[in-house]
Every structure is written in C-alpha cells, then in structure tokens.
C-alpha cells in the first residue's frame, strides 16, 4: 500500500470511528448497518469479482455466522463465541458446500449454491431448538478485552475495527500471489489448468475465504439487531448483497462498501416517503446496469480519473 493510500485508509477509518461524536442514534445505526452489509458484500465481491464465481447462496454463510454467534453468546459472551466460533462454522460449511459447488460453473453454480442456502432456510424455519420461524431473540453482544459491546460506543468501535480488518485482509489477499492466480482462473480457467494449476483447489480456498468473511458479517449482524430469523438464509439476502456488489462495481472491493451504502441509504430514504421502495430500487438497478456497468466505482473512475 502506498503511504498516501495508507493515510487515506487511516483517515477514513478514523472518521467512521468518530462518527457517533457528531451524529445522533439513528444515523449511527444506519452507518453500522452499512458497514456490516458492506463486509458481507465485499466477501461476495471477492468470490465473484475476482474468483469469477457468481453465487446466489452466499446467505448460507451469513446465516450460519449469525445463528452460531447468537447461540454461542448465550453460553458465554467471549470473543471465542462472538467471533471465532461463527467464523469457523461458516468456514466449515463453505468447505462442504464449495466442495460440491465448484465442480460446476455458470448457471449451475448459481443454482447449486442457491439450493444449499435454501436448505438452511427450510431447516431453520422448522427447527424448534432454533426458534423456528421466529428465530432467536434477545441476542447478547460480545465482551472484548473486558469491554462489553452492549454499550453503544464500544459496539461501534468493535464494528469499525472488524470491518477495517476484514477490508484490509481481503484487499491484501486479492493482491497476493493467490489473488493473482484467482484472477487468472477468472480470465481463462482452461489455460490455468493447462499450465499446471489445480484450479478446483484454488477455487475451493477462495470459496472458503469468502464464506468465512460472510460468517463474520453474520455474527456482527445478529449482535447489531439483537435477534436473528430464518430470513437471514433466504435467497433475498444473497440477492441484496449481489445488488450491492453490482451497484458498487464488481471486482473492486471498495465498491461493495459503496454499494452497501447506496442500497441502505436509498432504502431508508425512500421507505420513509413511500412503501414502493423496491420499485424505486429496481429502476435504480436497471439504470445502473444499462448506463454504469462498472458501478459507482467505475463511474467515479471515469469522471475524476480515480485509479484503483
């Protein structure tokens, strides 16, 4: 990272961390929601924008992270329960689902990942021990280094720190040798195989990384809203993350955060005037796909010559 870009990153993180000092409760909540969904969308962008795997079942890992965190935090409020356990559970699920899904590509990959996530939805919807269709309510928040994130200022810093860490880790990974292999596979899978890369193993690792980060986002989300229901697994959860990635600009990581901001701000703005917010969103999305296929990041780069 160039010093200038590092400075920019630190400044943005500091500004986001200091936001509650200047804003009321509702804007802060909106910001946290944007950040958490931003992590989820970034993990999907890593998978589709770099790895070329368009998943319609990414909600599976978001939901698993959320449910595992909600359950584990009932037993003990530590970082193990609130962060490590949900991340590991999502990673394990991604290993199994990925093992089957990466064997196919294109529309078959989409359908297979979708089917897996809907299986989790169907199961949690029926499972009495997970609260069935009501899910789990009264989820408590994690205690980190003796600091209870049940206090809003602490929770805000906890969210900002984790989001910054996740963004940094993904940013580093796409620029690593592994990330370059992933881009090569996206460009020309057959040639990568022919020069000697065991392509499916690389794709599986990418799938597990994306699933793990999505699990972390889910764990944050359930602590943020204080509950979790089977809807977390529903295909619309995957669909919304997909919209965020496309609106923000695929294959940019930063775009996923911008897309999350655009999506959630639009939702909160429009829904306070009209109930037809999905209609407005749909029109916005169509306009983006038609006139700004590079998303917000693509449009910004075109306008001010901003570079990656």
């Amino acid at each position: 990272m160039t010093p200038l870009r590092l400075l920019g990153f630190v400044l943005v993180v500091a500004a986001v961390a200091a936001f509650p000092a200047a804003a009321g409760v509702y804007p802060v909540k909106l910001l946290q929601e944007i950040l958490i969904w931003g992590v989820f969308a970034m993990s999907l962008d890593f998978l589709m924008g770099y790895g070329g795997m368009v998943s319609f079942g990414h909600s599976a890992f978001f939901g698993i992270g959320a449910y595992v965190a909600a359950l584990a935090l009932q037993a003990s409020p530590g970082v193990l329960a609130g962060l490590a356990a949900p991340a590991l559970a999502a990673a394990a699920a991604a290993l199994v689902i990925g093992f089957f899904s990466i064997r196919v590509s294109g529309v078959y990959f989409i359908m297979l990942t979708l089917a897996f996530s809907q299986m989790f939805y169907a199961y949690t919807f029926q499972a009495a021990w997970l609260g069935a269709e009501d899910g789990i309510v009264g989820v408590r928040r994690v205690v980190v280094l003796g600091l209870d994130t049940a206090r809003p200022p602490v929770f805000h810093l906890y969210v900002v720190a984790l989001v910054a860490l996740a963004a940094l880790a993904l940013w580093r990974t796409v620029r690593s040798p592994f990330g370059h292999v992933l881009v090569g596979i996206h460009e020309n899978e057959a040639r990568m195989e022919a020069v000697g890369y065991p392509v499916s193993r690389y794709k599986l690792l990418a799938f597990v990384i994306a699933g793990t980060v999505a699990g972390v986002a889910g764990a944050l989300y359930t602590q943020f809203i204080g509950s979790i229901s089977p809807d977390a697994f529903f295909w619309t959860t995957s669909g919304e993350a997909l919209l965020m990635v496309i609106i923000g600009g695929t294959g940019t990581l930063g775009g996923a955060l911008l897309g999350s901001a655009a999506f959630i701000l639009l939702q909160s703005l429009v829904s306070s005037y009209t109930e037809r917010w999905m209609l407005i969103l749909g029109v916005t999305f169509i306009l983006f796909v038609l006139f700004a296929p590079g998303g917000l990041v693509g449009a910004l780069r075109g306008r001010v010559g901003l570079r990656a």
Partner: protein
Amino acid sequence: MSPLLAIEGLTKSFAALNALNGVSLAVEPRERRALIGPNGAGKTTLFNLITGHLAPSRGRVLFEGAPLTGLAPHAVARRGISRSFQRTSLFPRLGVEENLRLAAAADGRGSWNVFGSVARLATPLRRARDVAEQVGLAERLAEPAGRLSYGEQRQLELGVALATAPRLLLLDEPTAGMSPEETQRMTRMLAGLPRDVTLLIIEHDMDVVFSLADRITVLHYGEVLSEGAPDAVRADPRVYEVYLGTGDEA
C-alpha cells in the same frame, strides 16, 4: 537412449468413430518431431490424449518412462509437458508479463500465499521477462494480451507454453493464420529454442516443417501412415498421394 515420450497403441473412439486407432510413436530427448496429416487425421486428439484433456479408449502414454494414465491436465503439466493451443488461449485482460508470470509460477511454490506480495516472488518474474525476450515481446510487457496484434498473440501463446520451463513442448499449429512474414519470424523463434526442450509440433506449413523437424510422423485417418527423416517422408509415395500432392494445406 530411452525415449522421452512413448505412445503405445493409443486409440480414442468417439461413438462409432475411431479418431485415433492404435497409434504408437516414440520421441527421443532433444528431438524435434513434426506431426502432419490432413484435417481430421487425429493430430490434436493425440495432443489432448497426451495432456490429459481426453482419456484414451485403449493404449497409454509414457513420459520419461512413467505412465501419464489418469492424470488431470494440471498434473501432466507439472510433470514437465507444456502445450500451446491452435486457437489462441491467453489471459486477455492481463498484461504480457502477467500472462507469462502466471505460467512461470504454476509450479506451486508461493502461489498459495494469500498475504504475500507478487513482486517478491522473484523467480517467476525473472522467468517471465526472459521468456518475453525469447518470444520477441520484451517491449510489450505491460500491454494487455487482448490488445496485441494477432501475430503477437501467437508469440505470447508460445511464450505462455514456454514459461512453465517444460522438457516436452507440444505446439499445435503455431503459425496458423499468420502472414508470411509472421510465419518466418515464428519459425526463427522456434529454431532458436534451446535443444533441451524437446518439440512435438503439429504444422500445416511444409516450409516450417521441413526447416525445423528432425523426424516427421504422418497421421492419416487416425493411424500412422509414415514416419522417418524429412527426406524419406517427402519421398514416400503414399504421403505424396494423401497429403503433399493434394494441395490440401489449409
């Protein structure tokens, strides 16, 4: 001396058609072997069977004495066999250097690193630049492969195959679709390759074949019709009849 590549009774059937029928041939280390024959003779099928892109119906392929049976393409590549494709197969949005670097880094060391830096993996980068020099693209390192001219793309196609440092290089019509000047340049490049890279080359341009090959194998309807030194093959009346005399050099 034992052959580098030994093909034993290789047969490939697609439904009722035998694309390849009991083909045997042996390529010695350091040899440059041309594989010729009319379209549909089974030349590319033979390549696909060697590299694991297809599984044989019968017979086997031995490389350095070890059978390649059941190996996936990436595993065959790791053994030291590389190939170029008849239809150019590059990473179009990536630069020339990155195209070559990816191929050079395919031996796996370091490419699982998820946090490290690409620039610090010096060996593949150096190899990429050396190969760029070899295939005449040293001035075009940053240019995306998709923006190169057709001739340059064919040079890069050869470069990507070379960058894995193979001991056996399979070239599928390296001069296909090239202008006469581009063909000459490619022929010079191939002639200049180090001898420790053994070549098996499918080619329709007879000038290229006769100027490069130590030996020629002629395939016809999936079988070996003739094999020998260029002059012997040229003098073989059967070869003349099915191939050289018909003007079918497309």
